[in-house]
């Protein structure tokens, strides 16, 4: 049975549909990435999954419990790390952990708290106020507090925002260790490199789920063609961008990446350009980032289109 199996989740705030018909399944032990631009509805979706928001439509199960009715049972078995640090800054690290351990009725509490402090390497700083920790440490403490009660599902909402690369690397190593131990993880993120460390990803934009699958599946499913040119003169960028079939042009160091959705049209346009300027294009690999940028600009077009339609209405 899937750990998370939700269908058609919808959430409206006022007359704005913030999450629109989102379906998602996550299997045991998977690390699933949840990607999308700011304000696309990631946090809202995660909150619905752990019972913090009531969906306006949709149904499903989390850990076998009804996502609409059994939120108390779900809360007991889920670890949720909020986007913003939401432990008590005026309590010490140890007091925060004590609080969590008591709330989950962990026994013997001392053992759980000491073990957690020990694994964090914070035993000597246990009496430090949580508010005085650096961003990276706050995030580690929050993660430790979220997994202290040994949840079956871990929901992480942009856990590595504003954390330095080394701490991020260590964080992800830990997530993989936990998943290897059978924990299921849904993690929202902005970072492409983090997406590539997930078993599967879901991409959401303006509340709609646009793609899901492994990174390779998502890239393949986007149906993009990419060409690479070496040592192309910089003034060519603007011209290429205007060619039919080209949707993205981006310089990467000394190379230029050209991406388009229509392989035939793109090939024809670039062949004509090669004939004229002598710059050679070869097929390159489409990256996840190319795909996401494509998604974003497409979503903007949709929005513009919808806005235009709305304006056209009398």
């Amino acid at each position: 049975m899937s750990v998370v199996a939700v269908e058609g989740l919808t959430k409206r705030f006022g007359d704005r549909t913030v999450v629109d018909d989102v379906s998602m399944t996550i299997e045991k032990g998977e690390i699933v990435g949840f990607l999308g631009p700011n304000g696309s509805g990631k946090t809202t979706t995660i909150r619905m999954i752990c019972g913090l928001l009531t969906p306006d439509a949709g149904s499903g199960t989390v850990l076998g419990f009804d996502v609409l009715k059994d939120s108390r049972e779900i809360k007991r078995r889920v670890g949720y790390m909020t986007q913003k640090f939401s432990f008590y800054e005026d309590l010490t690290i140890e007091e925060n952990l004590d609080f969590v351990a008591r709330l989950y009725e962990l026994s013997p509490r001392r053992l759980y708290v000491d073990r957690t402090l020990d694994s964090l390497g914070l035993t000597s700083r246990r009496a430090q106020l949580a508010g005085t920790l650096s961003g990276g440490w706050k995030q580690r403490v929050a993660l430790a507090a979220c997994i202290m009660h040994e949840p079956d599902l871990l929901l992480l909402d942009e856990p590595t925002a504003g954390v330095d690369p080394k701490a991020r690397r260590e964080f992800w190593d830990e997530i993989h260790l936990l998943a290897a131990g059978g924990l299921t993880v849904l993690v929202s993120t902005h970072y492409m490199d983090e997406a590539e460390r997930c078993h599967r990803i879901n991409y959401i934009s303006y509340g709609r789920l646009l793609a899901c699958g492994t990174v390779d599946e998502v890239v393949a499913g986007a149906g993009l063609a990419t060409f690479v040119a070496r040592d192309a003169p910089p003034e060519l960028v603007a011209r290429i961008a205007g060619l039919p079939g080209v949707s993205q042009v981006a310089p990467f160091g000394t190379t230029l990446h050209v991406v388009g959705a229509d392989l035939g049209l793109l090939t024809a346009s670039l062949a004509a350009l090669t004939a004229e300027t002598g710059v050679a294009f070869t097929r390159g690999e489409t990256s996840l980032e190319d795909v996401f940028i494509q998604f974003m600009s497409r979503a903007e077009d949709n929005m513009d289109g919808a806005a235009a339609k709305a304006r056209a209405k009398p």
Partner: protein
Amino acid sequence: MIDFSLSRLWAILAKEMVQMRRDRITFAMMLGVPIMQLLLFGYAINTDPKRLPAAIVAVSQDRYTRAVVTALETTGYFRFEAQPSSLAEADLLIESGAVAFVVTLPADFGTRVERGDHPEILIEADATDPAAASGAIGTLGTVAQRALTREQGQEAEVEARQDKMLSVVVHRRYNPEGISQYNIVPGLLGVILQMTLVMMTGMALTRETERGTMENLLAMPATPMEIMLGKILPFLGVGGVQVVVVLTAAKILFGLPFLGSLTLLISAVLTFVLSLVLMGYFISTFARTQMQAMQLTFFFFLPSLMLSGFMFPFAGMPDWAQAIGECFPLTHFLRIVRAVMLKGAEMPAIAWEMAMLAVFILAYGGIALARFRRTLD
């Protein structure tokens, strides 16, 4: 199945107490404010003021008149500052607040005393501040009586015992009921408790919302009941400490009488405190920010002060105002505390008021629980 866990309750309780202890300013305020207010109001509201400005309207200058005036001045209560020649002039003085009393002796005072004719002394008191007037008024009759007997010689004194030589007519103006000053300190206890506790608990939930910790708290398995109890019980303790502080200070500093049973008083005060913290918690389920909680508290605070009988005599208010007044726990608490402390009332006498407090507790607690949002919707 009732889902209640002592461990979870204790989690919240312990956390709240640590936070309370760390929040130095709040902590200081909770203990400092009651003492400060008690000292400030207790001493500022002088229970027996002396040397109050007075005017005397006495047309004749016979020896009896002079004897009465001198005797009144030596009590220390009156300081005769004006001798208006007409009643209209005297009226103006008392109306403007220039004097607190106008003592009027009839023109034929001396003659009537000698005739044994019971002349009347009229004393008009500005009773807007009733506490100020009462001491002075109380002494007037006996002082004037004694002055006259002395003036007439010893032999008349025996006679005077049975047959008063004069009568004093008192007109309390502007505030006929005349609350005694002892009303104030017990009332002050209620007001101090209300002010600090409602505001503090009013922020109990909004603080979590504002700091973003609410999301985390709700994501963990705490029930609304556990959260409510965990948040109000520390304040119940704080209220208890405040009560002890205020009552001890009132006893030591103001010699407040303690006629009734202390157990009854303490249980009544704790019931009142519980209703206050629940009211605060109730407010915090409405407020979205701490600022709103504060505003709601004040919105509630002033009418309760005015309509509870703390400031103005309850019985003197129109029916509709009394009806509103009945809706404040403070109103009922004032009746209880005055009855128990000053009149030595027993449980049967205050049972109705206690029941009203219990109704508040159930209503505030029930509504707060029903309103508590388990989700962030």
